């Protein structure tokens, strides 16, 4: 019996379309008996952010650069950890509370590599990928969110 080799794959999607966790997970697992560990992160719109009620969240991005940054981050992750598959999805446009914003999914033969890879991708996405959030409250007023120092601190762990 010869060992099978799982096809390595990176998939990046940026756009207004929603995603289905199960479909992404199935793509991580399909024809893959090498990877015993799968970690998925989903970021969702909260209805309360820093104490402000949120009615709508607008996601702006820099087309082209976002995909380039996410692809580079995925490549970096595969260099640091044994991750056979990586899938990253980030939505743009108008979203509402409970909507899905972002998906990061990785598969690996090793549990810790899967957790680290997914954490790394989210931390670096937060500080390097050109997306910007604008919140609208129930009274109709809008504000651009400020970057958080805590996100900078989390991303610095990986440098």
């Amino acid at each position: 019996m010869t060992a099978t080799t799982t096809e390595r794959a990176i998939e990046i999607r940026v756009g207004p379309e929603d995603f289905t966790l199960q479909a992404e997970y199935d793509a991580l697992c399909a024809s893959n008996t090498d990877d015993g560990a799968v970690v998925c992160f989903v970021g969702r719109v909260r209805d309360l952010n820093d104490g402000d009620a949120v009615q709508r969240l607008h996601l702006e991005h820099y087309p082209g650069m976002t995909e380039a940054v996410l692809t580079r981050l995925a490549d970096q992750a595969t260099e640091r950890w044994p991750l056979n598959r990586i899938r990253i999805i980030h939505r743009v446009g108008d979203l509402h509370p409970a909507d899905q914003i972002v998906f990061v999914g990785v598969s690996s033969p090793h549990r810790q590599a899967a957790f680290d890879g997914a954490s790394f991708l989210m931390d670096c996405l937060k500080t390097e990928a050109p997306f910007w959030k604008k919140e609208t409250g129930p009274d109709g007023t809008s504000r651009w969110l400020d970057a958080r120092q805590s996100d900078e601190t989390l991303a610095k762990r990986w440098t």
Partner: protein
Amino acid sequence: MSHLVHVKFFARLREELGVAGLEVPVEEAPDLDALKHWLGEAHPHWQPMLSGRLLTAVNQTMTQTNQPLKPGDEVALFPPVTGG
């Protein structure tokens, strides 16, 4: 090839400046620092917005230092990112 540098603004900065981008002759902006200086000179009311904390990307790669520009380069200025 065009002799222009393509400048783009995003998010709050785009809204504050009221413009998504503009073209600058590379002669006016031989490097990043010169480009930023030129923007403030040509549009004095942009000065406050341009002096805040901004990130810079050249040809869709983030940079933290000055670097020379050539015709056709795409320079983007934007606030710290808040996605994810």
